[in-house]
């Protein structure tokens, strides 16, 4: 493997790993003080369990087997047969890099189910969801039937954000609403923590998107630039919407917009160019700024807006890729978007891929949630919910009044 490529992808993998603690802070700050440790721990649990599951069977099921299929096989379980002596370092590196994505994808779901899920139920949900939902969809998008049809997803718009976003909705629906929601407010307890988490996410996202080029090349450079622009454009638009609609530009609006833009550019990062990242980010910023209001209108308790930001942002970005994908700019062999002379072919394939992901992920996540509800139980008791999950579930308190 080229040493420059190896150095960049290893660096990118570390950047993607850093996003999960960043996400934990982003969500934790938005949560209430009595539940912040539970939120952090749901994210850190993904850092503990997913690497093991990924190496034992996850990677093999997600990338093994023949091209064009539905699921991999067990041939690469425990990375069997790979060795540095045989020169397998490129496979080992990409498997590790993908493992970082496997860590953060279930972690994204945690925001929707804040304040009410039993930690043991979450602990079991994560590996089940990883193997039954993340792994098959990952296979379809990156080597399976969707890939064979020409579906594009540069770094995980469909495979990660649409997938986790709709799963978050399914799990939140089975769990039910937080006590008191929406009548009594659940405002963020620590906005500086949210802003720090946002900064870490943006920083890490350069590895997520530009690292997905798999090499230190021109595609990586353009993906890097697109990641820079789309996040700024989305944050800018979100804050403008707030200023015009509500009267104030808020820190949470800026943070949410940045994340919405990062989500939206993820499927597009190494496929679009020119003003496209600014347009994609801007549209996602506006769409998500309004989408976060849907939960109160429709009555589903997506506590920290995983659906409104990740599902909607991922879907917007993925569908806009159907308009802006530009093989001519990259000299690449992939379907062109409608604005790049490719007609509606790519748009149609992306609609099919997202539709299939939404139906599959929502259905299987609902089944996993119902199975857990019927066996070990999903929800904490009412007293724990009122007193906070930190003390009851983890025997810890984030902030003490004195000392």
């Amino acid at each position: 493997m080229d040493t420059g490529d190896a150095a960049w992808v290893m660096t990118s993998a570390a950047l993607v790993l850093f996003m999960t603690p960043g996400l934990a802070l982003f969500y934790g700050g938005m949560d209430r003080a009595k539940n912040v440790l539970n939120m952090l721990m749901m994210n850190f649990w993904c850092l503990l369990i997913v690497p093991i599951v990924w190496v034992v069977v996850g990677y093999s099921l997600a990338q093994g087997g023949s091209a064009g299929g539905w699921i991999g096989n067990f041939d690469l379980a425990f990375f069997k047969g790979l060795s540095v002596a045989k020169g397998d370092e490129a496979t080992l590196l990409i498997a590790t890099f993908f493992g970082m994505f496997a860590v953060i994808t279930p972690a994204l779901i945690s925001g929707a189910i804040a304040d009410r899920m039993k930690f043991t139920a979450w602990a079991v949900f994560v590996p089940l969801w990883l193997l039954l939902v993340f792994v098959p969809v990952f296979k379809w998008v990156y080597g399976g039937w969707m890939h064979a049809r020409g579906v594009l997803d540069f770094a995980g718009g469909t495979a990660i954000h649409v997938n986790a976003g709709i799963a978050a909705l399914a799990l939140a629906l089975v769990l039910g609403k937080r006590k008191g929601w929406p009548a009594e407010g659940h405002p963020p307890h620590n906005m500086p923590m949210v802003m720090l988490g946002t900064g870490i996410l943006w920083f890490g996202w350069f590895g997520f998107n530009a690292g997905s080029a798999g090499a230190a090349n021109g595609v990586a450079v353009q993906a890097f630039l697109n990641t820079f622009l789309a996040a700024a454009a989305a944050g800018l638009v979100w804050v403008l919407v707030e200023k015009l609609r509500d009267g104030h530009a808020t820190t949470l609006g800026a943070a949410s917009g940045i994340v919405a833009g990062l989500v939206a550019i993820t499927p597009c990062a190494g496929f679009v160019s020119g003003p496209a990242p600014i347009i994609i980010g801007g549209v996602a910023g506006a769409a998500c700024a309004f989408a976060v209001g849907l939960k109160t209108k429709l009555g589903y308790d997506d506590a920290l807006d995983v659906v409104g930001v990740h599902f909607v942002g991922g879907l917007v970005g993925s569908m806009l890729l159907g308009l802006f994908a530009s093989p001519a700019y990259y000299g690449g062999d992939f379907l062109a978007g409608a604005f790049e002379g490719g007609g509606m072919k790519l748009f149609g394939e992306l609609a099919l891929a997202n539709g299939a992901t939404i139906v599959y992920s929502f259905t299987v996540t609902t089944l996993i949630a119902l199975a857990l509800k019927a066996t070990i139980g999903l929800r904490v008791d009412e007293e724990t919910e009122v007193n906070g999950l930190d003390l009851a579930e983890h025997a810890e308190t984030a902030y003490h009044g004195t000392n």
Partner: protein
Amino acid sequence: MAKLITVIVKPFKVDEVKTALKEAGIAGITASEVQGFGRQAGHTEVYRGTEYSIDFVPKVRLEIVVDDPQVDAIVDTVVNAARTGKIGDGKVWVTDVESIVRIRTGEKGVDAI
């Protein structure tokens, strides 16, 4: 007889009130951060477009024990220092203190103030 003056003020007025009380020769003040509402009621915060009404707003409670003859002058000092003329300036009330002991010396009554 000793009196307890309890003062609820806006947090940003605490320094002015404290300075004025020290100039008036007060021996000690106990301060606590408290939350509450009066006629001002609470305020509204907006997160992701959703309005949250915050009923309890932060205030500072000052407790001052003085000898009876000083009470009116001290209350006036507090009111003058804490007033902005806007809603939410707070309240001052005075209650009787039955007994006081200075822990270090065991002094009692007005001597212990």
